[in-house]
């Protein structure tokens, strides 16, 4: 097991390194000159040259890249308008457009993104599992077909369209919900809930639909397994057959998908945050893209990659604990 984990972690480091390299190379090759951006309106060629030297933009690609990677581990110092700005490890860079350290910008906004992601995750898992199990139990009946239609709809509606529709109906027309604002939970839990409800629903809808379908398919498949038939044949109460024999194997694959989905969202629910104007990491990404603020985009890409890659590892390890059929690296 230890050897397996070591191997996986090493593989993870390689993938992360490649993601960093790939992202950096793309920005290095494609982006407009950051020096010219920073320089702004009253710019002279000398000033641009000076900024380029300050930022190390006159260095070759590999030097710049390793300076960046070095900054991630040991921190670095930026010269901003003649004054040094310390950026402690892990240094994600400095945004010259907003005059802030990228790391600070992300840390400030992470709580909102995490709130949105976790709340939505609770919602979609509950909704998905309940409707999925119900559909499977009543396969072919009205309930099943109703949820089938509902899931197709939920899967097909783009979340920004759903967001705008809900906003129009619930906020503008009916006035039932406030326009979402990042109310802190400790200030007022009730208002916190109402404010985040719409973003949660919007974000969760598509996921809930896929979880419903997946749960339904898995449960139906498990119900046809021999061990379920055996359990039924030996006269086990239906409720126990479901609880002990049908649900557990049917639901374990969902753990995998859930881990990956959640990990993918922790780096910010870009569209949902943007539509509702909630100041999380996703909105930060959207704003930085509009402003072409490369250090921020670079950092967010990296951060999301870390979440996803760590998520894959955690899920794989968890999976071998949950599902006794999967034992990786054991004595075989």
């Amino acid at each position, binding site marked *: 097991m230890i050897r397996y984990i070591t191997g996986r972690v090493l593989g993870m480091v390689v*993938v992360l390194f*490649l*993601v960093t390299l790939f*992202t950096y190379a*793309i*920005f290095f090759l*494609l*982006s407009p000159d950051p020096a010219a951006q920073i320089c702004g309106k009253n710019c002279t060629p000398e000033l641009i040259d000076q900024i380029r030297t300050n930022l190390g933009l006159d260095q070759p690609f590999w030097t710049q890249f390793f300076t960046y990677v070095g900054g991630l581990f040991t921190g670095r110092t930026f010269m901003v308008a003649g004054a040094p700005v310390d950026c402690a490890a892990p240094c994600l860079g400095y945004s010259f457009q907003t005059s802030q350290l990228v790391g600070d910008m992300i840390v400030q906004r992470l709580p909102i993104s995490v709130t949105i992601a976790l709340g939505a995750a609770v919602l979609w898992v509950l909704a998905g599992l309940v409707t999925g199990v119900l559909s499977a139990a009543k396969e072919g009946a009205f309930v099943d077909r109703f949820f089938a239609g509902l899931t*197709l*709809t939920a*899967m*097909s*509606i*783009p*979340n*920004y*369209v759903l967001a*705008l*529709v809900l*906003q*129009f109906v619930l906020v*503008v027309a009916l006035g039932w919900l406030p326009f979402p604002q990042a109310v802190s939970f400790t200030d007022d839990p009730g208002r916190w809930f109402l404010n985040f409800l719409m973003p949660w629903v919007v974000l969760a809808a*598509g*996921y809930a*639909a*896929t979880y419903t*379908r*997946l749960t339904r*398919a898995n449960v139906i*498949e498990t119900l046809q397994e021999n061990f379920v038939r055996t359990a039924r044949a030996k006269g086990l109460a239906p409720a126990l057959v479901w609880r002990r024999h049908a649900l557990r194997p049917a639901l374990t694959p969902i753990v995998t*998908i859930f881990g*990956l*989905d959640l990990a*993918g969202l922790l*780096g910010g629910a*870009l*569209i949902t945050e*943007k*539509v509702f104007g909630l100041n999380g990491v996703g909105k930060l*990404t*959207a704003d930085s*893209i*509009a402003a*072409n603020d*490369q250090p921020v*985009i*670079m950092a*967010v*890409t990296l951060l*999301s*990659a870390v*979440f*996803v*890659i760590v998520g*894959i590892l955690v899920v794989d390890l968890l999976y071998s604990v949950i599902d006794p059929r999967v034992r990786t690296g054991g004595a075989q």
Partner: protein
Amino acid sequence: MTLTSSSLEIEAAPGADSESLSESAPTSGRRLVHAFVKDWAAVLSSAYIVLIILMALAAPLLARITGWGPYEFDQGAIDPNMGAIPIGPAGGISAEHWFGVEPGSGRDIFVRIAYGAQVSMAVALSATVITTVIGTVLGMLAGYFGGIIDTIISRVMEFMMAFPALIFMIAILSALPSDNRIVLLVVVISLFGWPYLARIVRGQTLSIKEREFVEAAKASGAGSARIIFREILPNITSTILVMAALAVPGYVGTEAGLSFLGVGVVPPTPSWGQMIASAAPWYAVDPMYFVFPGAFLFLLVLSFVTLGDRVRAILVSGETRA
């Protein structure tokens, strides 16, 4: 469904576990067509898709019929004293402007929807063709030859799938110069889309490779190319078809989402996602401006999802019955 990376993967799973697809003999096309015609959901959704394709193809013609080009401003249709909102009911719907006009500019929404359909269809269908071809070829190579080829292809697939695809697509698109956005969108979407199909094809190839008829072909001296294309490929075509059908709505949604975020098709070229984005600030005063592109997009994705779903159901039931 839009832009969630897992949706493609989850869609992939049912296609993968329906191994019955490849286990039985190929079905007769006529029986499938028959089952298809009797399925009202499949018929309705294909009718809508055909309608959108016709609309996209006939966009210049529609512009001529209505008399308004996609970039033409109609100052007469908006009220400058009311913040330039459209004159008339429901966003300025009239005999002249069938779906009304855009607030602010007075451009004809119907014609812009038709031109937006061009973008949507061009991007989604090209990306589907490209990802299907790449995914099939690489998946079969990895599955059939195994060894080092499999290792390389599988690692590349894992690498691509570990990427935060949406953020990365946005990053690439925002960094690249905006000459031909449609080609760029196709390239970027295909780049991140093929591993999902390749993984399924690889799995199917692995299982079919062990079957007796492949052994027989090998024993009778058939080469690798012959076995791959004549023995294995015909047995996974239905899986590929279903996967491709289920990929299209994902790509429609991705294109619209990227355009919505402002990194897709650049104005003034219309795209549905971009129209929704520009309608967002107006939705309280002029909801129709949002309703049309929103409804067209939703229905197109829904139709493709339903169609893919039905095709899969028909293929599975048709083949198990056969």
